């Protein structure tokens, strides 16, 4: 018996790990022509893992205050060995994680994997995506450069539009009436303490549900072909993870994260301030909305509609009634396609109008 078997026997004797091992290994992965979409959740997971490691490393040199944040990041980028790499990986993996999570969400939507009994897996997944947005929004400010400062100013301004709770949320986020020294402390607190707790909790639930219920198969796939998750699918997962790791490294080395100028709260807002790409579609929606609509303020309507869309996304398992009866509905399909077309179109539009 090798060391590993000894250890396993030791633990098994004391903690009856059989159930856990079963939980990890009993799952199978259906094989059909849409199987490729099963990789995206795993890729998001490994990117989140990269984020945790690189984020913990960044904590070693980062100082969360308006006086020192920018300087500490510059120090990290220029003086600390491989500091540039750690920060670039953190910045790039963040973007890729959100991208993978979006693709994962879209694939689950079109493959109707949210059908009973997997409603809560969907709900936790959607909330996880919102949390990733929260990570992106709070993390963007932390280097305290001009772009981040003003993007945060505009972003928290938008939060203030929401009636009743908006101003409270705005004050809560900013820690005062304006974006300043207090804001950076709060965003740091959210970014490294509150959001991670939420992420870990929901991520564990999300993964546990998947392990308990196994992988879903689209209603129209009749074949029962499948492969064991461990090791067959897991090895394939590892291939995908290696590829994503390679991509993260390539982009981080070739296009390292930049720092820009230190934020000056008293400087006029520079032209062409835009949030991160995953917020662009919302930003652009606000911009193109007419000033007044049905006797309401246009911005309010835009924010309200975006909020409703978010709520609808969360409730998809219950809104899609035909799916509950294992039927496909062209209407749900069309809504999904239109939604994606809108988000992609608006993002593209925002990127296209930027230089003008």
């Amino acid at each position, binding site marked *: 018996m090798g060391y590993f078997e000894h250890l396993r026997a030791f633990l098994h004797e004391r903690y009856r790990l059989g159930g856990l091992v079963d939980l990890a290994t009993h799952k199978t992965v259906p094989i059909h022509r849409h199987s490729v979409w099963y990789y995206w959740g795993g890729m998001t997971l490994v990117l989140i893992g990269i984020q945790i490691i690189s984020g913990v*490393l960044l904590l*070693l*040199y980062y*100082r969360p205050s308006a*006086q*020192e944040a920018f*300087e*500490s990041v*510059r*120090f*990290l980028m220029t*003086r*600390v*060995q*491989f*500091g540039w*790499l*750690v920060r670039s990986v953190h910045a790039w993996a963040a973007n890729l994680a959100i991208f993978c999570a979006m693709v994962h969400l879209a694939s689950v939507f079109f493959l109707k994997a949210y059908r009973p009994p997997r409603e809560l897996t969907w709900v936790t997944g959607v909330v996880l995506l919102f949390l990733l947005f929260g990570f992106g929004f709070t993390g963007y400010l932390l280097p305290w450069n001009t772009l981040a400062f003003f993007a945060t100013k505009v972003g928290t301004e938008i939060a203030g539009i929401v009636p009743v709770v908006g101003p409270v949320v705005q004050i809560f986020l900013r820690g005062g009436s304006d974006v300043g020294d207090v804001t950076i402390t709060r965003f740091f607190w959210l970014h490294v303490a509150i959001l991670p707790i939420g992420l870990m909790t929901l991520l564990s639930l999300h993964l546990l549900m998947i392990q308990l219920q196994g992988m879903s198969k689209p209603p129209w796939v009749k074949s029962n072909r499948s492969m064991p998750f461990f090791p067959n699918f897991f090895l394939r997962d590892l291939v995908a993870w290696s590829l994503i790791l390679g991509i993260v490294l390539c982009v981080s080395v070739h296009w390292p994260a930049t720092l820009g100028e230190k934020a000056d709260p008293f400087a006029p807002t520079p032209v062409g301030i835009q949030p991160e790409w995953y917020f662009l579609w919302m930003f652009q929606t606000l911009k193109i909305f007419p000033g007044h609509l049905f006797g309401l303020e246009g911005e309010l309507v835009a924010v309200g509609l975006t909020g409703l869309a978010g709520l609808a996304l969360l409730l998809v398992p219950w809104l899609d009634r035909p799916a509950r009866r294992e039927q496909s509905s062209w209407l749900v399909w069309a809504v999904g396609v239109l939604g994606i077309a809108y988000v992609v179109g608006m993002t593209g539009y925002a990127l296209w109008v930027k230089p003008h």
Partner: protein
Amino acid sequence: MCPRQPLSRRVFLALCLRGGGLALLGAALYPILRYLYPPRGVESSVSSVAAAKVGDLATNTAKIFRFGSRPGLLIRSPQGELKAFSAVCTHLNCTVQYDSDASIIWCACHNGKYDLNGQVISGPPPRPLDAYQVNVRGEDIIVSKTS
């Protein structure tokens, strides 16, 4: 079945997986360990800098220190006061120095002279030197930009 082929294949597989995995681990750990090792004696912040130790400067001496990518001048005046200025001459950006005989700040390029408040005494400089704030924190003399 030829036993040789699966064997060499297995060896190759083990090389790829175990060796590759170990190499990957090394490739990840190398930058991380280098990252964790503290960089040599530089302060991270540029809006303030530890310019010298308290004992470094005798009365009526000065020291050039680095403030970001520009030089600064830290002076202990004949009265024992600590003063700090940007060491960049306002005339043609030469680095100024302390003249302990005359107790003035002096630029060697064109003989620009400043008093110990950074004001121009004589020579071509059009403006006074930018003054910095000096604080003593424990053993360190901290120079910071006045905001």
